[in-house]
């Protein structure tokens, strides 16, 4: 019996030098969680927010009611997109380390989330991603070279040098612009979804935040608006266990899963194995169907692990065990899908190796092309006068005069 008030200071299960310890993660065997009808009432499906929906078993076979029965070609395509994402990340990380771009963020270990959800959504559905959803941009048609040019802030940069690397946008692909401020996109996605319903369209919206950002007010605005108006939206929490150096308990994930955050508002939550492409695809399709048929929002928690550093400015060896990812019980999403395809007889180590080499070559070729549009040190360079554009729809008189002044100053050099 506690006799005095006291603070609990949340502490992760392991710090540098400790044995990795994931005993805190509640796991369910693959295939053990029921798949309810999409019309089910939230109160009847609360089990989805505490269990863990998994399809791929330890032996890499697909099990249970959530198996989406994707055909082998679709799975090979999914594997390719995940591998391409990782190949891009690997190369760009290396390029940043060589000082050739200022900053980078990789999605190592979380590739299944973007690719599976990209596949499960329709092209008219609008995505409001976080900064670790580069797979979505790739899947929705942004070329490698354009991703790289953005990171280079060069003459082909979609952001014209205005944004930090990785803050992409794609109007054509229906993927929103990355802000840099966390969780702001979450309630924006709900507004987009509300507009879709107001206009009588059947497009839905989806958004992503990390476990850490669930603490932001914007997360709660999003849940409230989504619940109140039953907006057709999928709200995703990518729980990769770490928000820079603070573990998911610091955002309040220790007592109830993030998937349960919506239950008080009547939003169904699904806790899914985020490293299981089949499971993520299946729960996304379920939530999308539900939203499209007027069933309202779903909150999906993807249990995954941030396989790399937070960003190129981060050093995780200072705050977590070096071998923690290797010990993560849900493994590596790329490896798991690969093994599934092999077990099913639709893939081989040799094919995998060949594809990896080909993607690596594609990435290298794209990097060679990207540099033609300028690098940080060598031209061609962006015209700095463009910095005054797009502040307003039309350039105001005072910006026009500042632009002239800047050009005068530059011409004096």
């Amino acid at each position, binding site marked *: 019996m506690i006799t005095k008030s006291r603070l609990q200071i949340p502490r992760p299960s392991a710090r540098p030098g400790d044995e990795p310890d994931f005993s805190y993660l509640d796991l369910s065997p693959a295939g053990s969680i029921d798949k309810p009808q999409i019309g089910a009432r939230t109160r009847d499906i609360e089990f989805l927010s505490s269990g863990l929906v998994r399809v791929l078993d330890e032996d890499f076979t697909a099990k249970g009611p959530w198996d989406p029965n994707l055909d082998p070609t679709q799975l090979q395509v999914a594997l390719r997109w995940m591998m391409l994402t990782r190949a891009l990340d690997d190369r760009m990380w290396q390029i940043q380390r060589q000082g050739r771009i200022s900053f980078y963020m990789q999605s190592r270990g979380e590739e299944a989330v973007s690719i599976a959800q990209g596949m499960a959504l329709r092209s008219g559905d609008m995505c409001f991603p976080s900064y670790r959803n580069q797979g979505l941009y790739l899947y929705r048609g942004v070329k490698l070279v354009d991703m790289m040019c953005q990171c280079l802030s060069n003459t082909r940069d979609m952001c014209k040098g*205005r944004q930090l690397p990785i803050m992409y946008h794609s109007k054509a692909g229906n993927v929103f*612009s990355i802000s840099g*401020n966390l969780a702001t996109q979450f*309630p924006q996605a709900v507004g987009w979804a509300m507009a*879709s319903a107001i206009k009588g369209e059947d497009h839905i919206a989806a958004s992503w935040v990390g476990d850490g950002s669930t603490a932001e007010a914007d997360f709660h*605005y999003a849940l409230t608006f989504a619940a109140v108006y039953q907006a057709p939206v999928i709200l995703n929490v990518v729980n990769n266990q770490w928000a820079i150096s603070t573990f998911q308990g610091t955002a309040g994930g220790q007592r109830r899963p993030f998937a349960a955050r919506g239950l008080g508002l009547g939003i169904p939550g699904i806790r899914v194995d985020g490293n299981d492409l089949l499971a993520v695809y299946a729960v996304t399709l379920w939530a999308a169907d539900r939203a499209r048929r007027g069933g309202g929002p779903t909150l999906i928690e993807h249990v995954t692990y941030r396989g790399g550093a937070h960003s190129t400015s981060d050093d995780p060896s200072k705050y977590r065990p070096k071998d923690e990812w290797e010990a993560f019980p849900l493994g590596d999403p790329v490896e798991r899908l690969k093994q599934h395809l092999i077990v099913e007889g639709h893939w081989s180590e040799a094919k995998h190796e060949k594809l990896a080499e080909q993607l690596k070559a594609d990435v290298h070729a794209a990097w060679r092309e990207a540099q033609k549009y300028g690098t940080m040190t060598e031209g061609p360079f962006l015209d700095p006068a463009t910095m005054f554009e797009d*502040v307003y729809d039309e350039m105001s008189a005072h910006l026009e005069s500042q632009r002239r002044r800047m050009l005068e100053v530059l011409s004096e050099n």
Partner: protein
Amino acid sequence: MNMIEAIRSAHDVMMDRDPTVIVLGQDVGYFGGVFRCTDGLQRKYGEHRVIDAPIAEGGIVAAALGMGVNGLRPVAEIQFADYIYPSFDQIVSELARLRYRSCGEFFSPVTIRTPCGGGIRGGQTHSQSPEGIFTHVSGIKTVMPSNPYDAKGLLISAIESDDPVVFFEPKRIYNGPFDGDPEKPGVSWASHPKGEVPEGYYTVPLGSAEIALPGEELTIVTYGTLVHVAIAAARETGVDCEVIDVRTMAPLDVKTLADSVKKTGRCLIAHEATRFGGYGAELAATLQKECFYQLEAPIGRVAGWDTPYPHAFEWQYFPGLKRLSAGIHRVMEAE
């Protein structure tokens, strides 16, 4: 029309013309707004176009932003400007910069309406004038009308603008012009020329100031409620003042202001918001640069004291007739 009716009429005209215009905010729907600015709109346009929102200003602006990206033209009401701060990040980091950061691929034409200013016994949480906080942010336009005619015309321009606009409504003059003397009986807009408001569509362009009172000896640059106080102070002092109603704080119509100050050689800036670091400082800096060689005296400023707006001392705080008249004399006597 009074200003409330003019604002309501602007909504009505735009909702009728453009099916993408929708309204959301606290109490704006069934009830028609705590100041009645959206009264009757939900009955006329339905619950999908006039939406009662939860008490979550950040959520209101964020949802409006998302709706704007999806082809709607949202008008969001923040019930009091004092309550706008929870939405500050969504306005400053998101709404204002979306076009910029996506190089024009994405934008959201949101208008945020919010009643501001004191003189209604609102205390420190229902009286603020935070316009200067928003004029400092590139990517948004800031507007404050001083009369019903301008309110309707400017609001229609704001709704039609593809840029986000923060539209401040000085609530002390919703029902009638106010000369700064709370002891006098209230005056209605009925007898004021700017209370003549056409029923249909018209615009007052954003970025244009107006000469509210022509004069030759001193220019008073002001906006909102203080336009009327400045006119009263001009009459009381007998100084031949030219009162300029800024109307749009950003983008600023520098030419109208500077032309007047070059003509009179003297300038007094007045706003209800606190003085230090306020919008008046930007006006003063701009006008001294534009008009330095024509100025015959230092530019004066009259503003709210640099304290929160105190409930019991509202009229000691409010930059009323006495302070404006004293300000006029100060600038006239300075050499």
